[in-house]
């Protein structure tokens, strides 16, 4: 079942003519000519679509919070600042099929009553920005954007905004600051963007994949979308698969397949690269807890873990993780967990905006302490120190970057404490090139 990527490999799908030949822009025709904005919102609510950027908040509900004061413009801003390590699905979708996003932007803007919308793309993807701008021009030329779209009386201008290289701008209020031409410092909430967002006007910020899914929902109805998936994990999800698998790439899966199938089936990742064994997975982008092989495949109650919001988080952080953005990073037995955790800690240290002291100082400490452990200069008390620092960042910052920085460190220690201890107790072994600790009796050890 493919919704977003069904035609993604069709040659020329990036052009409006080919895109339309494959059913493109039917949702715009239907929504603008046959539906009211509230009816579109109602279908999105019924679909159960949840925010695909990582938070998983219901999209229809987020839309329903939008304030609608008379005479004040409202905005839809698409969050295409994809920067969570392990995540490259939005990059792929916009690069291959820009009209899929643009169609969703038109439908969603109509539902929200926005007459100007922006797609905020991370600046590193400048080539994708050019692809989007070309596609937007095509849409204007065909009367799908601009004044009185398809004679419906609805006007929409759509612009692409380039970021400048900052992970924090994926946080919605930091993104709005950035779109206003400022540093990406997250805002205190409330007020939420739905009330005071871009230039203090009511604003909805949604991820690329969430917005793209709305066209299919308009065409087929919210109920049809909700029939795909399991329970509250409805529809399909783009999963970015990277690391030690045979077929890295972006896969659109129906939510609800097993993690085991996703890793080992030839339809998806195709298994672990030849001759190697699964050691650990970071299932939803760098910020979600890492899980060892046995825990990612099976829940604590012995059930096969599914690719759903609920199943992946089953057991809480003690034995579970999160679906997050769907950045699925697979590691085999050659992976040094300490080194991998160091790259994540360094990432969050570099990307902390510096506004809140627990995050600004704490991410620096975690980076520094893990680095010395990795270099064979760790101290016995360092592991508890890391846990303590992580605990003191978590929940004590304006935005979730603090939590995102703390979780990978505390989870790596929770599940691979022996590997950190080995680095501290045996620096002469741990600092050998390519040295990796093998846990006695583990499924990935020989």
């Amino acid at each position, binding site marked *: 079942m493919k919704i977003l990527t069904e035609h993604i490999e069709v040659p020329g799908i990036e052009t409006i003519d080919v895109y339309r030949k494959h059913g493109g822009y039917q949702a715009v025709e239907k929504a603008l000519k046959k539906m009211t904005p509230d009816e579109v919102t109602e279908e999105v609510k019924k679909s159960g679509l949840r925010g695909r950027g990582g938070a998983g908040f219901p999209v229809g509900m987020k839309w329903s919070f939008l304030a609608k004061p008379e005479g004040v*413009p409202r905005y839809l801003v698409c969050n295409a600042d*994809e*920067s*969570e*390590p*392990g*995540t*490259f699905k*939005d*990059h792929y979708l916009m690069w291959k099929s820009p009209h899929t996003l643009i169609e969703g932007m038109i439908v969603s803007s109509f539902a929200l009553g926005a007459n100007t919308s*922006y797609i905020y793309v*991370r*600046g*590193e*993807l*400048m*080539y994708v920005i*050019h692809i989007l701008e070309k596609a937007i021009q095509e849409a204007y030329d065909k009367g799908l954007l601009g004044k009185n779209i398809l004679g419906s009386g609805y006007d929409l*201008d759509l*612009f692409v*905004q*380039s*970021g*400048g*290289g*900052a*992970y924090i701008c994926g946080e919605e209020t930091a993104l709005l600051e*950035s*779109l*206003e*031409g*400022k*540093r*990406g410092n997250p805002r205190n909430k409330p007020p939420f963007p739905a009330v005071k967002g871009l*230039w203090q006007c009511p604003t909805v910020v949604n991820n690329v994949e969430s917005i793209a899914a709305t066209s299919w929902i308009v065409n087929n109805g919210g109920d049809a979308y909700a029939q795909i998936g399991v329970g509250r994990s409805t529809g399909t999800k783009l999963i*970015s*698969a*990277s*690391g*030690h698998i045979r077929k*890295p*790439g*972006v896969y659109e899966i129906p939510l609800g397949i097993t993690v085991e199938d996703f890793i080992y089936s030839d339809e998806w990742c195709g298994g672990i690269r030849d001759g190697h064994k699964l050691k650990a997975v*970071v299932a939803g982008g*760098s910020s979600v807890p890492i899980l060892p092989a046995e825990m990612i495949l099976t829940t604590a109650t012995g059930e096969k873990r599914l690719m759903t919001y609920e199943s992946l988080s089953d057991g809480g952080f003690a034995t579970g993780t999160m679906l997050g953005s769907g*950045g699925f*990073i697979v*590691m085999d037995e050659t*992976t040094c967990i300490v*080194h*991998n955790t160091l*790259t*994540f800690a*360094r*990432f969050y240290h*570099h*990307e902390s*905006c510096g506004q809140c002291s627990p995050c600004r100082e704490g991410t620096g400490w975690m980076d520094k302490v893990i680095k010395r452990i990795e270099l064979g200069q760790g101290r016995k008390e360092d592991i508890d120190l890391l846990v303590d620092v992580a605990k003191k960042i978590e929940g004590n910052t304006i935005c979730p970057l603090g939590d995102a920085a703390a979780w990978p460190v505390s989870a790596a220690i929770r599940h691979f404490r022996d590997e950190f201890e080995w680095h501290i107790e045996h620096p002469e072994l741990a600092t050998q090139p390519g040295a990796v600790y093998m846990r006695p009796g583990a499924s990935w050890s020989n």
Partner: protein
Amino acid sequence: MEGKNNIVFPAETLDLVKKIIARYPEGKQKSALLPILHLAQAEWKWCSPEVMDYVASLLSIKPVEVYEVASFYTMFHLEPVGEHVIEYCRTGPCCLMGGVEVYDHLKKRLGVETGGTSADGKFTVKEVECLAACGWGPVFQIREKFYMHLTKEKVDQIIDELGK
């Protein structure tokens, strides 16, 4: 309008600047700052104080409003750079794919440390965080182009080609 040291965009870039400013409501022209900084960096390679002052004048904002933004975002070079700036991804997934070895080879080949510029002024090597290309790693970027699935051999080919 002209900045110090004859810093001024070519006419067609100035047209583009006007179009970018028109994307936002009246009085919100500051929103054009990041897009215009990108244009400025494309024109002058790096964001010198003179370039940033010029950008401020185009948007009728204070120079400090440009400095604080340019220094916040990693894409803007605040010091001179070589002809080609190679920005390699140092984050987890690229490292899993052998990134560290490949990047060490790159630096050795060019005789530079991270952040340095090769003696002939052709290449500056910078390390950056995740470029959203994790399934195609190791990855680096030169201007707008992504170079994916890097190996030592590929790095040599790219350097040979661009170094000509």
